[in-house]
């Protein structure tokens, strides 16, 4: 059976829930698709023209019958809709405390960076029993990050972040697929997800190893700092923040040309046009690349765009830095 599976492994907290709904749908389908053909078979045999049976008083409409077979299916689909809807909202809403991992998709590989700066290609190491949030973007076309054993999939779009979360339950290696057609080597944009116990994951995080960066250069993977000392991804973001001269306007104490970024992430910002926006990853991204799209109330639209000036990788680091500012703000 090892080489001929008929049902996928269950390796996340979602898997069992999705499968239960799936089996319920299969059962419902069997009632219709399993019973209806036999009804039809019975009718076409019994009422075949060669059969001498009672055919008097044929009916050609019956309102009660019509309502029955309208309302019962309606009730059933509403049931599965609400069941599916609650599960869907849960699957799309990450919990407050998650392990944030940044993913970049490009033709035709996945690049992953963990919060301590550890990078890997076409592999994703995650701890079990811990909610993991993937913050994903693409460098070129639309991809889709798909882990069948976790029953979860999310398209990865260029020009914005998409979020996906899961909690692995079982150590092991699982398929990682690109599920959105992305060109010639689409079927080779695959890899594996390695779920490890937390201790093993942390040990793995601290192991240096060379890796190819999204721009093609090779990172020796030497500069790994133990997670307890600090967050190198945010540290790299902080260096960038200084080098790009962001600090000149976004003074941490406030009172600069631009708003202070202290405690910004996750807060609700009031905009110049009176509306409000929650400062999530996509808002931060937009404000860096297209600053004039949303102007914070009380500030002028003077920030230049950094579109084309920084790579997706650097953008991830900047955002990791800005997010770390929210933590110290608390």
């Amino acid at each position: 059976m090892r080489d001929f599976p008929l049902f996928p492994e269950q390796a996340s907290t979602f898997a069992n829930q999705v499968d239960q709904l799936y089996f319920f749908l299969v059962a419902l389908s069997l009632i219709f698709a399993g019973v209806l053909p036999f009804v039809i078979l019975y009718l076409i045999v019994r009422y075949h023209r060669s059969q001498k049976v009672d055919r008097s008083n044929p009916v050609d409409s019956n309102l009660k019958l019509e309502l029955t077979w309208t309302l019962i299916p309606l009730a059933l689909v509403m049931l599965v809709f609400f069941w599916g809807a609650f599960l869907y909202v849960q699957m799309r809403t990450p919990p407050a405390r998650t392990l944030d991992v940044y993913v970049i998709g490009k033709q035709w590989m996945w690049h992953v960076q963990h919060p301590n700066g550890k990078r890997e290609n076409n592999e994703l190491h995650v701890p079990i029993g811990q909610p993991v949030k993937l913050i994903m973007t693409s460098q070129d076309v639309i991809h889709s990050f798909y882990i069948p054993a976790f029953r979860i999939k999310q398209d990865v779009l260029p020009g914005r972040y998409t979020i996906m979360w899961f909690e692995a339950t079982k150590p092991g290696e699982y398929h990682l697929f690109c599920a959105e057609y992305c060109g010639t080597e689409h079927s080779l944009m695959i890899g594996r997800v390695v779920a490890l116990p937390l201790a093993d994951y942390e040990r793995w995080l601290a192991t240096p190893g060379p890796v190819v960066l999204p721009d093609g250069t090779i990172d020796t993977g030497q500069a790994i700092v133990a997670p307890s000392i600090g967050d190198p991804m945010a540290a790299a973001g902080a260096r960038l923040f200084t080098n790009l001269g962001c600090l000149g306007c976004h003074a941490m104490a406030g009172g600069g040309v631009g708003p202070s970024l202290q405690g910004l992430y996750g807060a609700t910002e009031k905009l110049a046009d009176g509306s409000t926006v929650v400062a999530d990853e996509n808002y931060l991204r937009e404000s860096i690349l297209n600053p004039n799209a949303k102007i914070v109330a009380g500030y002028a639209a003077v920030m230049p765009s950094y579109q084309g000036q920084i790579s997706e990788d650097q953008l991830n680091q900047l955002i990791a830095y800005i997010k770390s500012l929210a933590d110290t703000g608390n």
Partner: protein
Amino acid sequence: MSTISLPQSSYIRDNSRTFIDWLKSWLLTVDHKRIAILYLLSINFFFLLGGLAATLVRVELITPQGDLMSSDVYNRAFTLHGVIMVFFFLIPSIPAVLGNFLVPLMIGARDLAFPRLNLLSWYLYMIGGIFALIAAVFGGVDTGWTFYTPFTSTYSNSNVVMSITGVFIMGFSSILTGLNFIATIHKMRAPGLTWFRLPLFIWANYATSIIQILATPVLGIALLLVIVERVWGVGIYDPALGGDPLLFQHLFWFYSHPAVYIMILPAMGVISELISTFSRKRIFGYEFIAFSSIAIAILGFLVWGHHMFVSSQSVYAGLIFSFITMLVAIPSAIKVFNWTATLYKGSISYRTPMLYALGFIGLFVIGGLTGIFLGVTAVDLHVTDTYFVVAHFHYVMVGGTIMAYLGGIHFWWPKMTGRMYNEIWGSIAALIIFVGFNMTFFPQFILGYLGMPRRYHVYPPEFQILHVMSTAGASILAIGFIVPLIYLAISLRKGAIAGDNPWGATGLEWKTSSPPPTFNFDKTPIVTEEAYAYPPEAAERDAASWRPGSPL
């Protein structure tokens, strides 16, 4: 009624003396029946071409490695299969062939309202088809039939502009057909033929036409913008240039989801005709079937977002689209139940078209139910973009539309040609197709739930057994499609003379000779009764007249 020879004058015969005259009389015809035959030939040509591409894909997938062809060739093969089958076979199939032939006949008109527009629509179809063919011959296109941006607009190095132009032109052909049917059905019905006396095939085509004229232009503009973006290099869909990749998906599915109903609604119309005729009974719940067509047409415009549950559209949008998707399942269910109820107390015969109709119900039920799986958001996150989706839409499109198309062709073959085909071979082919189809696509549901993504050239080895099963089924299916070609072609010369009404059906098309004269009716019919007006004792009388040796 003479059953010894074909009628002296019919739309097929003409007095042209030379070959050129004869060719002209066909290529410049404005007769809806001749245009239907032109469509029949060209659409079947494209069907065979699309089938060839499918064969390549299935053969490649026998092994997990990409050994038969390179990934570039594989991508071009499945794109060719998709583009040809969707845009050049399924969308025009039943409306343009059976609809063109039957709409005027069924409503007692001499022709469609705009015969020249009708001919123009065939030429547009052919021009679009030639563009698609040229694109395929000179290197092909590798974007998938969905043309997702920014891959299509910026990254693909293939004949994108050529293919899209072909689809764009074909779209206008589809619009013109829809326009023609709407005007014809509204204004050209025979005296006494009120809306609720119309055959359900007409209702289905009417609903289809509404979708065609409303949705197709949106596809046109979406594709036009792709061309502009590729040629001019301006960001409409590519975020690197300031565009929005999701805009394309919204515009595309705004057309392409209703387009699914362009494909299936006329098929449902055909099935209503077949079930009623071969049960010798008025169809059960006429009004419910008629209105369910309209309901599908309207709701079909509001569910496009269910193709985009994982595309990063908001959770709320996902929930709303999922909810409406659940509603659109209901009218289809109503139809299935009404067809089943029609069988009760009928006098059922197992002629070839009826076998297709029964096959349709079985396959469409599976296709429809798996559609609910996909409409339920939480399950869709797992199975979308996998073979589950592939299996689902093949159950609806092949199991639904093609079964109905073949059933319809067999049912109206005597009317189109005046001759009968070989009944035994007909039944055998129908059974082969049914079995082959299920063998091909049922394993794909399992593959999909296992997580096998679609459009994969190489795949993990544990999926191989199911893929091999699927390919084995596909070869049976291919035989099933070739057999009818042979016996139908033979019937053109050798087939028994059919007579005006070989099935003993109701409906105006059976009241004229087979094949019909150029202007359809010698005298304009006046309708005094409803559709499927079998008298209450029709089934009883039909069964009583059955003797061992009469057709089953």
